[in-house]
């Protein structure tokens, strides 16, 4: 009897040992990973949250908290985002560039992705590889070369909004291609073949089958393009013709170097919300479109969960 009790009694351990057991118990949750993840989340989010908090400060200080106020958004008749002409035009310019970028880069990127994924022949591999170049080229290099091209070769473009849009489109296309091509590979050729088998012409198969199946990837890539365009500093700056072609990041940068006010925080907060909104929208649409496809996976996940609870 006592032998059994002895066997069943857990071995006594020091508090350090117990803490290590809590952290690394191979049968329990992966707590070490959980701790690391939360540490990273806090580290990356706290500065942002502080910046957001001071955008609502009632005084001109960006370091000493006074009271909650929306003064820097629209209350202040001179320096608020709404009333300061510089900030306002920057916001408009940023939105203009991002929208144009989405409208131009997404369709081109989708067609390129389909072409690259379906084209097997001489030159297809290098082209597939070269598509990744804009993703790895330092942005500063791309900015300089684009500036050279627009001021020396295609001088009719010059600097300003057109040049900025062309610049944004140039590097955004790669993102669209990478996202859409991934989806293309995962859906494979079978649906197109089925469509052709049922009498759909190549164009018919593209419109009736391929594009609807690509929709989640197209929306997601549009959201990503919007987010990276609105966030872009380097290319917008190189191709800016000054004044009203300055974007929000450029404004924030120069304001911070001169006399920073909480209105800088306010416009940064707005930018963050826009980016978050576009990415969230993209994610939600992706989920809505792929609900059926995920059901099988969800079933497996459910089984795992019940298994885990036992």
């Amino acid at each position: 009897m006592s032998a059994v009790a002895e066997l069943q009694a857990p071995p006594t351990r020091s508090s350090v040992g117990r803490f290590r057991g809590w952290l690394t118990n191979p049968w329990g949750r992966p707590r070490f990973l959980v701790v690391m993840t939360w540490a990273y989340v806090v580290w990356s989010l706290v500065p942002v949250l502080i910046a957001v908090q001071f955008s609502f400060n009632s005084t001109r200080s960006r370091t000493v908290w006074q009271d909650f106020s929306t003064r820097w958004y629209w209350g202040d008749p001179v320096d608020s985002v709404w009333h300061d002409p510089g900030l306002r035009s920057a916001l408009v310019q940023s939105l203009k560039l991002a929208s144009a970028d989405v409208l131009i880069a997404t369709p081109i990127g989708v067609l390129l992705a389909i072409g690259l994924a379906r084209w097997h022949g001489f030159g297809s591999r290098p082209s597939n590889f070269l598509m990744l170049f804009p993703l790895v080229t330092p942005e500063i290099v791309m900015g300089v070369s684009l500036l050279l091209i627009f001021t020396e070769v295609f001088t009719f473009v010059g600097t300003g909004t057109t040049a900025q849009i062309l610049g944004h489109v140039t590097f955004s296309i790669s993102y669209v291609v990478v996202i859409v091509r991934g989806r293309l590979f995962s859906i494979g050729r079978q649906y197109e073949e089925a469509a052709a088998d049922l009498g759909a012409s190549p164009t018919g198969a593209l419109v009736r089958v391929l594009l609807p199946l690509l929709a989640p990837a197209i929306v997601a890539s549009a959201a990503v393009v919007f987010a990276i365009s609105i966030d872009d500093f380097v290319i917008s700056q190189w191709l800016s013709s000054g004044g009203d072609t300055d974007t929000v990041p450029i404004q924030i940068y120069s304001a911070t170097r001169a006399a920073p006010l909480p209105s800088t925080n306010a416009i940064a907060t707005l930018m963050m919300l826009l980016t978050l909104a576009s990415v969230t929208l993209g994610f939600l649409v992706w989920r809505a479109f792929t609900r059926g496809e995920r059901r099988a996976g969800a079933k497996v996940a459910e089984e795992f969960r019940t298994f885990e609870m036992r």
Partner: protein
Amino acid sequence: MARGEIRLIGLSKEFADVLAVDHLDLAIPGGEFFSLLGPSGCGKTTTLRMVAGFERPTEGRILLDGTDVAYTPPHKRNVNTVFQNYALFPHLNVFDNVAFGLRRAKRPKDELRERVAKALELVQLTGLEKRKASQLSGGQQQRVALARALVLNPAVLLLDEPLGALDAKLRKALQIELKTLQREVGITFLYVTHDQEEALTMSDRLAVMNGGRVEQVGAPQEVYESPETLFVADFLGVSNLMDATALGTTGGGCRVALQRFELEAGGGASDAKGPVKIVIRPERVELEPHGNAAPNRLPGMVERVIYVGSAVQVIVRVATGETLQALVPNTGKELPYEQGTPVALFLPVDALRVLPVGERAAPPEDAAETAAETAPVSTGPS
């Protein structure tokens, strides 16, 4: 003549350096349930895909009701396909999946509704029109794929291992259903499978393929009972294969020598001379008490007795050193054999076949499979 006659003439397909289909000749009359049977990599799916139009033949002709369609794009051919994993459009519901082809053909609305309803009735899916493909079971998805193809009244229905993804019991049920359906609609079914039982159960005729070529064409019984090549004998069911020497023709068949034993084989290449293989199905091997010296008997010793449910498998090592398998139906009585029992094996003359040992020797099934899998790798620069 029934619609849907297929003739393949000298059909070849080369991928990189691999000849997937090698000068194939086949004639399939309209309204037949015809199967292409073979191990993976034998070229059966490539053949089907060429008939469907997804692959362009490197060489040869595909005659569909007398017209060469080898270079007609798939959307202009009067054939429809049931894909291995069904390829139901996930963004459309059952009705729209089935209506897809009719919409491409711009059929009027009432006709469309009527034909979709009829097709769904044919596969017993009425009432599920609004479901998405992901909300159906595997068997139901398979039926939608069938309805989607049949609604267009094709001359030929192509089926690429359509039962491969289903569990064994459902597969059995659907085999019978498919065969019934084929009789009902009366069009040609070209069925690709690696499952010999499926091919034997359903086909009017079948072709056994190996290495891009047809080894034998015939009715299921013919191909099973009278295999013409080693590959067919080995691939279809379990066969006992033995090395022997053909001595020449006698009245009914061929005399063969296995070392010091002489047997008479009634089937196969009766005029063969020299080294041959002889083959017999396990269910035709009869076990007799030891000492029976009548003709066509081989003495041996039971090596193992395996209970397989409906039958008992008895493995016997015969005096020539080879092992033979005998399949004894399970009648509920205990068998008087156990490991070490000396027995005589009776190999009936009509069940014993002589096969020439040609260059087209059959690789064992798994070896063929491995070869097919490693083939694309070996085509790269090495």
